[in-house]
């Protein structure tokens, strides 16, 4: 066991896979020489050399296109898009090309690639550098979507993503890069499509993703200590594939489901979860499904504003207390 930061876990995960498989290559803006703008890929250029670790121009379409071309010709590329907001710049390559190539070619094309990116708010970067867009990726058939919340999950899920034969969009949370956690030594490979129950409770079920997970955990503590409400906390970890079994089982146990989502209100990932539960878990519901989300606004920049736009621990607690009766 070692304590690693979330950002160190990124580099460790990439390194583990590049070491194991010569076909794994890595490209992106400022990822090599600079070790990444978030310092999440420090040491990789030194360790694996300039042939397999490449710094690119500011050319998101070319970066993703290169990953696609390389993946379909025998390599297993990891491409970085610096801020997930920039997916909008290369969305054709991701949603129209990569997501559909296997299907349109009836299985001839194989694209075992990973696109990793820094997602989420909290860094005062403003509306175009703070979005949570994992729901955009969830909505496109042909993309697997992962969003880890802890360093151990980062390393293990990144390894699983690299080994996955399908395109995986790997959403790191920029607000979590400094967070620390225990990571097992040695080779670590997790499984996509598996949620984790981090806390078991009897009254309500909170389902969260990425940076909302620690907040849900803190809210669960306060709910217990201050209000005697016992909460289960589920870290969804993957949106596609979705661990519906765990979702439905944990919802049925309490009958009360709350989603804690960082994406803006409309069509956030929680809307899909709520719909699945309403359809398949209806007779176990003891009350309406409640979504706790960022309101449907672009994210403001000022610290006081940003902090109160995305769901806070306080807002999670208040919402549950108000509606759990």
């Amino acid at each position, binding site marked *: 066991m070692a304590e690693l930061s979330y950002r160190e876990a990124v580099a460790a995960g990439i390194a583990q896979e590049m070491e194991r498989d010569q076909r794994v290559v890595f490209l992106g803006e400022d990822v090599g020489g600079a070790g990444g703008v978030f310092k999440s890929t420090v040491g990789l250029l030194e360790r694996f050399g300039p042939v397999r670790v490449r710094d690119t121009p500011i050319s998101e379409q070319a970066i993703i296109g290169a990953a696609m071309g390389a993946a379909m010709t025998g390599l297993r590329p990891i491409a970085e898009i610096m801020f997930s907001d920039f997916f909008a710049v290369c969305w054709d390559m991701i949603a129209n090309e990569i997501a559909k190539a296997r299907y349109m070619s009836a299985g001839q094309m194989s694209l075992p690639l990973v696109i990793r990116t820094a997602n989420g708010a909290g860094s005062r970067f403003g509306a175009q550098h703070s979005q949570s867009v994992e729901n955009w990726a969830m909505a496109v058939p042909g993309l697997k979507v992962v969003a880890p919340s802890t360093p151990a999950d980062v390393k293990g899920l990144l390894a699983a993503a690299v080994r996955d034969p399908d395109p995986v969009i790997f959403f790191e949370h920029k607000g979590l890069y400094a967070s620390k956690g225990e990571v097992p030594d040695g080779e670590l490979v997790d499984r996509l499509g598996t949620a984790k129950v981090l806390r078991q409770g009897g009254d309500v079920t909170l389902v969260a993703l990425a940076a909302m997970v620690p907040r849900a955990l803190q809210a669960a503590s306060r709910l217990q200590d201050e209000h005697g409400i016992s909460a289960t906390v589920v870290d969804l970890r993957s949106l596609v594939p979705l661990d519906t079994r765990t979702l439905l089982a944990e919802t049925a146990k309490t*009958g009360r489901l709350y989603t804690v989502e960082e994406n803006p209100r409309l069509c956030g990932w929680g809307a899909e979860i709520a719909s699945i539960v309403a359809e398949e878990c209806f*007779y*176990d519901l*003891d*009350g309406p499904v409640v979504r706790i989300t960022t309101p449907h606004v672009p994210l403001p920049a000022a610290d006081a504003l940003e902090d109160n736009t995305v769901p806070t621990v306080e807002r999670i607690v208040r919402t549950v207390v108000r509606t759990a*009766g």
Partner: protein
Amino acid sequence: MQVIMPQLGETVAEGTVTAWRKKVGERVEAGEALFDVSTDKVETEVPAPASGVLTAILVSEGTTVKVGEALATIGEHGQPQSAPPAAAEERLSPVVRKLLAEHGLDAREITGTGAEGRITRRDVLDSVERRKATAPGGDERLSLGPIRKRTAEQMALSWRTIPHVLQAVEVDFHAVDAARAAHGKSAELTYLPFLARAVCEAIASFPLVNASFDGDSLVVRRRVHLGIAVDLGADGLIVPVVKDAAAKPLRDLAGAIHSLVQKARARKLRPDDVTEGTYTISNSGRFGTFLTAPIILPPQVAILSLDAVAKKPVVSGEDIVVRPVGVLAQSFDHRAFDGAYSAAFLHRLKEIIEGTDWSAALAEGRG
């Protein structure tokens, strides 16, 4: 809730609202003067029937309305209430409904601890747990639910106060079976509706069995409100009543009985459904018993039980034939009439069951 024009005098049919004492949106307390009314007999002020907020005034000053018509609405917290507040049953969540059905519980038996007195999943589960609480020695203490308690009290009272006499007669259900077979499969056409129809007819000739005992007199009821005993398993008995059973053709009677029994099993009976019975039938034959001595439901004076109808050898003329035979047993209140009367009633019942053209009776009333 609605505020209506009150009845201000025996012959007063209408009144005129002369002045409103409160404005829409204002808080009113129960008993506080709400409006002034003028009739041809009297002028007076009318108090608010409940506390709340005056959410709407439907009739302006100077308007004359009939007694009983709506004048205004009073609501909670400024919310206009266009419909009566939902009964507790209607706020049951999906899992609560499911658990109630699974455990055979009645929502009315459970105290809700959720918001606004809502019954939560936990409340139902706790209720189930309490019932299972074990006494020392491994014995189980099952506390009686409200329905069971009520049944218990009623049975004890009846047994204590009514001198029961049991009389029975064997009946050949051959004619009924023929009509049922000809009609085809139907969940509604058990023996019960045929028996009910026969009872209504027999009562026409023996009206005393359809009476209420009232201390020193017997009130002979003109209309037959037929109680149908329904077994709710661990929770006891309930007896929904088919009102005016004698006026219904067989088909409709069958439908009415079926629907009442369904409602009873789903615990959806209203208070109106279980009152004013004048005679009761109990169909006890499910488990193959031969005879049951039922307990009369006061203030009724008799109750009839039909046990199992089974194929038996029967003498017909000089031959032995196989017929579906069941025992009809009536318990009667010996204060109301005697054995001969009861026996004659039973004999008439037997005649009707055995001799009616039941297929024709089924067809009756169908346009």
